[in-house]
């Protein structure tokens, strides 16, 4: 993804507190995994995602994006959240951020551009996360085959 023009990145930074506030207010209706979190944990998690999205918008660095998602996925897995649940939460965050940007679009045209960018970022986030999960799935399937290959009595 190409880097975002500085004005849009600045608008995003300016809107971030409002996005965070909106997400904290709506988290129970947005996604079950966000609803289960206490206020402080939710603020930390959502804040981290929003901050990362800002960095991604500014740099367009897919490698860092992927690294962030890998860490995020691992941390949520440690909290017993399924990959589908993590994906749903990230999409909910992206959608809400885009919605806030859309509201800003009523005041200045850059808001609409930012909404589009955030929607695209959400799409690429979902894509990258699925690729990570698919890799993990493939790795575990290999482990399963290795295990079963060493147990000929169980192969039927």
């Amino acid at each position: 993804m190409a880097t975002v023009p500085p004005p849009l990145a600045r608008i995003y930074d300016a809107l971030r507190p409002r996005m965070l506030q909106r997400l904290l207010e709506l988290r129970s209706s947005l996604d079950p995994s966000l609803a289960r979190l206490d206020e402080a944990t939710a603020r930390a998690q959502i804040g981290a995602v929003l901050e990362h999205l800002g960095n991604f918008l500014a740099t367009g660095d897919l490698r860092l994006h992927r690294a962030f998602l890998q860490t995020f996925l691992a941390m949520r897995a440690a909290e017993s959240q399924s990959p589908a649940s993590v994906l749903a939460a990230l999409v909910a965050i992206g959608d809400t951020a885009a919605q806030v940007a859309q509201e800003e679009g009523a005041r200045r045209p850059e808001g609409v551009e930012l909404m589009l960018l955030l929607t695209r970022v959400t799409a690429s986030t979902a894509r990258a996360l699925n690729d990570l999960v698919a890799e993990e799935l493939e790795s575990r399937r290999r482990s399963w085959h290795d295990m079963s290959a060493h147990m000929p009595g169980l192969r039927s």
Partner: protein
Amino acid sequence: MTAPALRVAGDSHVGKVRRTNEDSLLVEPRLGLYAVLDGMGGAKAGEVASRMARDTIRDFVAARRGALPPRQLLEQAIAAGGTAVHRAAKASREHHGMGTTAVACLVTEGKRAVIGHVGDSRAYLLRGGRLQALTRDHTIVEELVARGLLAPEEVARHPHKNVLSRNLGARSETRVDLLELEIQVGDRLLLCSDGLYGYAATEAIQYLLGSGDAPDHVCRDLIELALRGGGGDNVSTVVIEAPGQAPTSTQVVRTNGAAAWWQKRQRFLAIAKERGLTRNPIVRGLDPKEALELVALSLCEAVFHDLERSTGVNVWTFTQHLAGGWFERGGDWASIRGVIDILGASARGVVDEVRAAEPQLGILLDVAVSRALVVAELALGGLLSDRLRQVDTDMIELASQRDTLQSIPEFSEVPEVTESRDTSERFVDRPTIPFLRPDRPVTGAGISAEVLDGVHKALTIARARTNPRAELIKQVLVALDAIASEGSESFGTAVLSARELYGVRAIDDAGVMPLFDALDQARILTTASVHQIQVPEGTRARVLRAISTAHQRLVGAMTGLVLEAVAPFSDRLREAQAATGKLRDQLARAERRCADLERRFATVADDDGHLWGAQGDTEP
């Protein structure tokens, strides 16, 4: 008097039993006049009566508008229609006893509507998602109910429930019931003959009327609904919609965006072909043209329908079927990723072209299509997550069995074998097209007997494989059979089936989730069953297409019902959010006030609360 800008459409159908259509429609936007009339009488007398009354009403309004207030204008116009029919009936033995019902709506420039009616043709108003009847039938039994001589619940089974107490033509002068109302933005008025409400559930009428589709589509769907319900009478509908002052971005996407997208479908296919869709393992063995149609056009249509209805259910279902079927056949992730990426790039290519021609529309379409791609990823994520969980379960089970075996001496010394059983790289030899586009969801089409037979066979196998106690799954399979057998573009059967399955469920996990679980289980069962029937590959693909489309429609209809059911809760949530905002402001003000008081108090009290300091009147 000029009519406000309304969107209006009307349609009529002879039904499945009658040989002639005795209903007449009046759609005159120039006059702001709309009506449905249902004629009665032997031979073609009913047809004559409804047409005569219709023409008289129209001519009366055209001649006297401006000279009379709207209420009197419509009242006298309908009465004049009755007088004309009465005279004609008396003058001709052939037409003796003929008559007609009439429900008419006159819309004036102030967006006020006058509704007038005689007989049992009805007017309904859909406002805020709720349907209300504006008219009371002029039937013997309704008169008895009004006088307290008959209980309302006895109406439906009363032998004279269809006997009119009033119609146009029975008398030289007719009493017309009138009602006035202010038309609000978003309102939808429905005028209809008893051929609609007599053969379609009120809930289904409400669902279709509130679908957001254009009035001509709604008219067509309502008629289809009545035909599915038996079509025992002529059925006529007029839908009058008061659209918003300025269309929202959602409305723009639903109308212009969807149309622009659909117009570019050939471009979508061309880009998909350029990017190598036909070489993907998923479509291996298929003719390139067929591959493009079955995969690319299917997604193109799914996006189109989602844009039209502001949902994601079609793209979701497409992706689930495509990827789910591929995975079930042992397919790999890279092929799915390849197909989705190609389709995503094709979509972006189309959007870029729309943006170049119409920047404002293009950006809205861009957002909507990007969201469709997110929906596709969500569907993929769900499948991957399920498979990951399954592999974990398998590993736990394997580890458990290994521990058991190792405790048995003869197995604990089994030498290691080098044979690999890795099936992760095993691809299918035959093409798998799990989601196949409906025959012609946009233009309508039939379904061949061969495919229909295949559908029945597959669903029979699926039913046989269903746990006898899994009643809900069996019901879903029966519904899929009915919907797939329709083979047309109508959602009527899907809506009715969904309503039947939905029943009296409550909107919570316990109420709704088993239903969606059953839908998902039915999808898996049917997909597997299609691969077991003995038919040529081409037919198999079409059978899968028919069942997938039926499933897609059922899920769509079910989602509509759930959304409808949660609407009041959403409203309450919004109200609660607004109230929370106000309370938060009040709390902030109170906290500021508290802090201020604390600061002031700190200057006049010590830690123990003894007053001192500012006033300096007490020493500690």
